[in-house]
C-alpha cells in the first residue's frame, strides 16, 4: 500500500457506516492509502439505523463480499398493515421466491454488521480509526485538503469522503449542504427488543433463519406522514416508527415520536408480539425524506459526499431504503476516486465522474422516479381516512349479527362508493398513477 508521504494520506473517509466502509473496501483493494474515521467505539457502535437490506444491489456492487456476513434472518414474509383507531387490515405476501437462494433480503443489526464490515475493510488494508470525530474540514484556496479532529489533530488527504450520515457535518462545513427544510426529513424512534429465537419463530410462524418484515401505516402516526416497521432478527425484534418532521412540527397538541412509539407498542396488534421482551436499545434518528430534491451538491474540489450524507434514501410507504444506496454510492465514489487518482487530478471536474456514475445507476434514477412520492404522502387522508375506510368495510363484511346480511357485493359497492366516490379520493387515485 502507498505509504503516507509527509503526514498525508490519499483518501480520508469520515464515517464507518455502510457508505464509508463500502468506499474504503474498494479503495483499499485497489491499494489506495485510505483511512476511515469513526466517532463510535467501533464501526456500528451506536448505529441503530437500518433493519432490512435488499441484497441484489449489494451483490452487484460488492460481489462475493457478503457470504460470511452476520445477517440476522432472510425475509420470507412481507406484511403491510393499515391501522385504524381500533382495527387494522393486513396484507401479507408469503412468496416461494423469498425462500429461493440467493435470498432477496435480510434483516440485520448494524452494531454487529458494521463491525464485521469494518474488520473486512481493515483486512483489505484500509486504516480504520475508531473513537475519533471529525469536527471540520481543512480548506485551502477553495479546496478541501483534509479534516480537523478535536483541538490539535488533523488528517490531510487528496480526497475527503463525507460518509457521516444524515445531517452530514462535513458536507455542511465544505459548503455542499445547506440547512434543509423540515419537510425533507423524518424523525424515527426505534427499539431493539430481545426475545428468545424460539418465541420469535412461534409468534411470527417462521422457520429457523426465516424472518418477517412488517410495515404499518395509518392511525399509529395520528394522521401524520409516516409509518411503523417491525423486523425480526435472530434473537430480537427491531420495532420503530417514522414521522415527517414537517407534520410533527405542525401537530397540535405537540407530540414526541417516542410517545407515538409507546402507543404503537401498546396496540393489540403489537403488544403480544413483543410481550416479555426486554428493550436493549432505544434510539431516535433522522431520516432523509426529501427524495431527489434534498440531494446536495455531491462533489467539489477534493471532496465527495456519499450515502445518507448525500440524502440518498427513499422512504416510500412500502419500503424504507437507504443501505443499498449507501453501498452503491460508496462503491461508485471509490471508482471515481480511482480514476481521479490515475489522472492525479482531484479537482471538482475530475471528481464529477462520481455524479455521472450515480446518474447512470439505480440510485439517482429511483430517486427521480419517486420525485412525487413526497407530495403524494403529504396527504393526511392516507394516514387517517383510507385505513379507517378499509377497516370499516372489512369489519362490515366480517360482522355477523341477528339481522339479515346484505349481499357481499352490495356491501362493498355501497360502502365503497360512499367512502371512495368523492372528488378528493378520485384525485388521490389519479395522483397515485404518477408515482
Amino acid at each position: 500500500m502507498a505509504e503516507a508521504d509527509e503526514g498525508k494520506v490519499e483518501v480520508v473517509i469520515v464515517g464507518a457506516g455502510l457508505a464509508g466502509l463500502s468506499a474504503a473496501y474498494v479503495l483499499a483493494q485497489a491499494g489506495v492509502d485510505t483511512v476511515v474515521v469513526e466517532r463510535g467505539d467501533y464501526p456500528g457502535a451506536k448505529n441503530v439505523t437500518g433493519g432490512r437490506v435488499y441484497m441484489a444491489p449489494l451483490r452487484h456492487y460488492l460481489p462475493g463480499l457478503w457470504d460470511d456476513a452476520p445477517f440476522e434472518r432472510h425475509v420470507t414474509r412481507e406484511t403491510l398493515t393499515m391501522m385504524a383507531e381500533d382495527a387494522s387490515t393486513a396484507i401479507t405476501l408469503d412468496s416461494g421466491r423469498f425462500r429461493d437462494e440467493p435470498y432477496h433480503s435480510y434483516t440485520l443489526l448494524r452494531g454487529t454488521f458494521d463491525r464485521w464490515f469494518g474488520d473486512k475493510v481493515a483486512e483489505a488494508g484500509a486504516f480504520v480509526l475508531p473513537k475519533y470525530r471529525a469536527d471540520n474540514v481543512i480548506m485551502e484556496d477553495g479546496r478541501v485538503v483534509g479534516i480537523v479532529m478535536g483541538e490539535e489533530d488533523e488528517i490531510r488527504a487528496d480526497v475527503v469522503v463525507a460518509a457521516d450520515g444524515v445531517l452530514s457535518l462535513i458536507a455542511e462545513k465544505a459548503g455542499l449542504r445547506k440547512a434543509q427544510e423540515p419537510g425533507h426529513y423524518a424523525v424515527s424512534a426505534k427499539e431493539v427488543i430481545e426475545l428468545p429465537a424460539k418465541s420469535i419463530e412461534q409468534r411470527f410462524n417462521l422457520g429457523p433463519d426465516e424472518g418477517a418484515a412488517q410495515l404499518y401505516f395509518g392511525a399509529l402516526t395520528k394522521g401524520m406522514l409516516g409509518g411503523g416497521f417491525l423486523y425480526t432478527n435472530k434473537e430480537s425484534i427491531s420495532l420503530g416508527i417514522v414521522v415527517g418532521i414537517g407534520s410533527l412540527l405542525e401537530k397540535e397538541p405537540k407530540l414526541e415520536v417516542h410517545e407515538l412509539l409507546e402507543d404503537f407498542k401498546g396496540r393489540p396488534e403489537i403488544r403480544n408480539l413483543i410481550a416479555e421482551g426486554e428493550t436493549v436499545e432505544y434510539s431516535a434518528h433522522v431520516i432523509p425524506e426529501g427524495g431527489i430534491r434534498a440531494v446536495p451538491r455531491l462533489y467539489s474540489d477534493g471532496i465527495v459526499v456519499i450515502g445518507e450524507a448525500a440524502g440518498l434514501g427513499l422512504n416510500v410507504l412500502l419500503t424504507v431504503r437507504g443501505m443499498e444506496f449507501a453501498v452503491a454510492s460508496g462503491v461508485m465514489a471509490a471508482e471515481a476516486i480511482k480514476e481521479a487518482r490515475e489522472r492525479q487530478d482531484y479537482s471538482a471536474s475530475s471528481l464529477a465522474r462520481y455524479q455521472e456514475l450515480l446518474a447512470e445507476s439505480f440510485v439517482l434514477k429511483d430517486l427521480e422516479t419517486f420525485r412525487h412520492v413526497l407530495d403524494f404522502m403529504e396527504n393526511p387522508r392516507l394516514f387517517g381516512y383510507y385505513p379507517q375506510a378499509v377497516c370499516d368495510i372489512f369489519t362490515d363484511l366480517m360482522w355477523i349479527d341477528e339481522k339479515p346480511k346484505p349481499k357481499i357485493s352490495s356491501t362493498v359497492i355501497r360502502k365503497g362508493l360512499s367512502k371512495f366516490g368523492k372528488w378528493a379520493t378520485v384525485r388521490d387515485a389519479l395522483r397515485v398513477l404518477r408515482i
Partner: protein
Amino acid sequence: MDIVVCMKQVPDLQQIRIKDRQPILENIPLVWGDIDKNAMEEAVKVKGKLGTGKITVVAKGSDKLQQGILEPLAMGADEAVLLMDPAFAGSDSVGTAKILAKAIEKIGSYDLVILGEGSTDNYSGVVASALAELLNLPEITYVRELEVEDGKIRAVRNMEESFEVMEAGLPALVTVAQEINQPRLPKFMDIRKAGAKPKHEWGPADIGLSTEEVGQKARRVETLSNLAPEQDRKNIMLQGDHDKQVGALVDALTKEGVLGR
C-alpha cells in the same frame, strides 16, 4: 533510563450488560485500563524530562492486543512485548505477576517499572506487589507525584490519612494513581507510525515457563460464582418544569417516608 510499563486491556465496563444477573461479555470492545494509561503517560513524561532512554510496554492478554497496542505505542512507548499465548489465558493476579516478571527479566535492562494502582476490572492491586517481590524491587504505590533524578526517585503517595513523600534508589517499581496526570490522546499520525515500532510476541517457552506453570492451570484462586446484585428501581423521570419536578420529588419522598425523619 529504561522504563517498563505494564498495561492491561479490559472490557469497556460501561458497556457490559447484565442479563439474569450474568455479565454479558461477548462483543464488548476492549479498552486500556484507565490507570494504566496514566502509567504510560508518566513514563513518557519521565523519558521526556531526562531526554534519554527507552519505554517498553508489556501486556498480557488476548490477540486483540495486536490492534490495541498501537495506542500505547502512539502515546510514546518505543517497543511492545505482547503475551498473547492461549496458555496464558485464565491467570489470576499472582499468576499474571509471574508471567510479567519473567518477561521483564527477559527484557533485561530496566531502571523503572510502572504499573497502575489497580486494573480497571479487577482492581486487586496484587499484581504490582507480587511483581515487585518477584523482581526483588523497592516498591512505591499510589504515587500522585513522581520525580526521577540521578539514580533515585522521589514520590508523593496518597494514603488514607496522609501524603507520604518517599525516596528509593533505582531500579524500582511504582504504581500510579489516576490523579498523577492526564493521559494524552494520541494523534492520528502517531498511531499511524506506531505500526512500524517493534513488537515482540512471547509465549511461555520464550520466557522460560512451561504451559503447566501459567494461566488457568496455575490458578491459586478459584471463582465459585460471579453475579451482579439484583436491582429494581422505579426509574421515574419527573416531568414538567423544575418547580413541578421538585414539587413532585418532595411529595414522592414524603410518601416514601424519608423526609423529616
